[in-house]
């Protein structure tokens, strides 16, 4: 059994939390003292399996001093979560800074390194450039008006602001949960939310959200959609693919009659939601499950296409490591 030097981490951790937090400003920031690499070194002191094992010991266990440095389960959980959040924030800060610097210095195409810091999966250069071009075209109203300056001046700051907002919302949700006792918000669930936090700010999500907000008020639309789901038009073969996905979901992650899921199911639900490019301030498995079903039910732009669903099924398989027959 190892002790991971908890006592010596307090001050640097507090600093990391401050330094790692993202800001909403569009200004360039000074070079940080704590780089992404140095925050990763601290994370490596708390591998997920070790952290979960240490968290499992009751507060009054004789080995508490050795496993958690005398910290209660709640304090230990909060420390581990903030260590991971600090590292994620540092990585996001690098990504954000690079994106804004790219705005000032480079041409239309974005560097792969700049775009590859979304946490779960890197975005291919060509794909991202196409999406950004499409987004800029949307702002201009016509592709003929897409110019470098428009992209620089409008698109990137708007995308960064949207990503900041998504990230702050995700962060606030986790902070609220950290007020709960260890038994109500175990570390396993916190890790699930951290995965969601990590992917909460991505170009894909930001582009999608800004585009939507530019055409209608998102909150009102969401409210209307929540009241009664509008079903998509399904093309040939769509039913078969969705039936496969739903059979898998019912067998593996469907909440029980009381709406509860196991911790393992919750983690899997977050992975599936991320694979479907869904995000939200969910705290219960039932909410994630319903968001997934709503996405399947509504499709994209009112249509459920077999090819889109097959792509979604493949991403779910990759994200969960499960095979969907």
């Amino acid at each position, binding site marked *: 059994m190892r002790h991971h030097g908890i006592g010596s981490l307090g001050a640097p951790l507090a600093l990391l939390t401050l330094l790692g937090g993202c800001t909403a400003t569009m200004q360039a920031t000074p070079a940080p003292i704590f780089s992404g690499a140095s925050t990763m070194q601290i994370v490596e002191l708390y591998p997920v399996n070790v952290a979960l094992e240490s968290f499992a010991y009751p507060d009054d266990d004789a080995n508490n001093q050795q496993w958690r440095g005398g910290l209660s389960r709640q304090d230990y959980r909060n420390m581990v979560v903030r260590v991971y959040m600090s590292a994620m924030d540092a990585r996001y800060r690098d990504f954000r800074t690079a994106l804004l610097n790219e705005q000032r210095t480079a041409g239309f195409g974005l560097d792969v390194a700049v775009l590859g810091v979304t946490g779960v999966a890197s975005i291919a250069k060509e794909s991202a450039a196409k999406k950004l071009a499409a987004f800029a075209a949307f702002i201009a109203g016509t592709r003929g008006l897409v110019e470098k300056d428009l992209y620089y001046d409008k698109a990137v700051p708007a995308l960064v602001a949207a990503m900041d907002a998504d990230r702050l919302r995700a962060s606030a949700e986790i902070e609220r949960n950290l007020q709960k006792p260890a038994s109500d918000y175990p570390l396993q669930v916190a890790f699930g939310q951290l995965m969601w936090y990590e992917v909460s700010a991505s170009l894909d999500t930001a582009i999608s959200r800004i585009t939507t907000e530019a055409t209608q008020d998102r909150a009102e639309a969401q409210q209307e959609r929540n009241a009664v*789901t*509008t079903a998509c*038009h399904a093309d040939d073969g769509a039913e078969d693919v*969705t039936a496969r996905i739903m059979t898998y979901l019912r067998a593996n992650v469907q909440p029980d009659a009381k709406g509860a899921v196991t911790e393992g199911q919750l983690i899997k639900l977050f992975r599936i939601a991320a694979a479907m490019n869904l995000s939200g301030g969910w705290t219960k498995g039932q909410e994630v499950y319903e968001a997934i079903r709503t996405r399947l*039910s509504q499709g994209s732009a009112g249509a459920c296409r077999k090819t889109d669903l097959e792509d979604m099924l493949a991403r779910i398989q990759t994200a969960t490591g499960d095979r969907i027959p």
Partner: protein
Amino acid sequence: MSKTLQYQPGSLAQLQADIGYQEAIYCALTALSVVDGVTQGEHDDTNVVPTHSLELVLDPDGTATGSAGSALICRGSAIIAEGGANAEKKVAAFRKAAA
């Protein structure tokens, strides 16, 4: 537990495909009606049904029957696109016999 869905206007065949697709997600259809000019379907959200087992037919006089061996689910109404216009039509939904 039931789930209410709004269906977009379309041909009878498209509506059958759309409802069949949603049955894969929200289980068996139980009722069809038109509310404020929109087709609304109720699904029971518990009774999983086989794929492609739904059959939707026009039911102008309330006596339509489905294919051989099929069982009536409900009689109701839906907005059907016909000849470039949408109109409320009486319809009947059947569950096809297992193959």
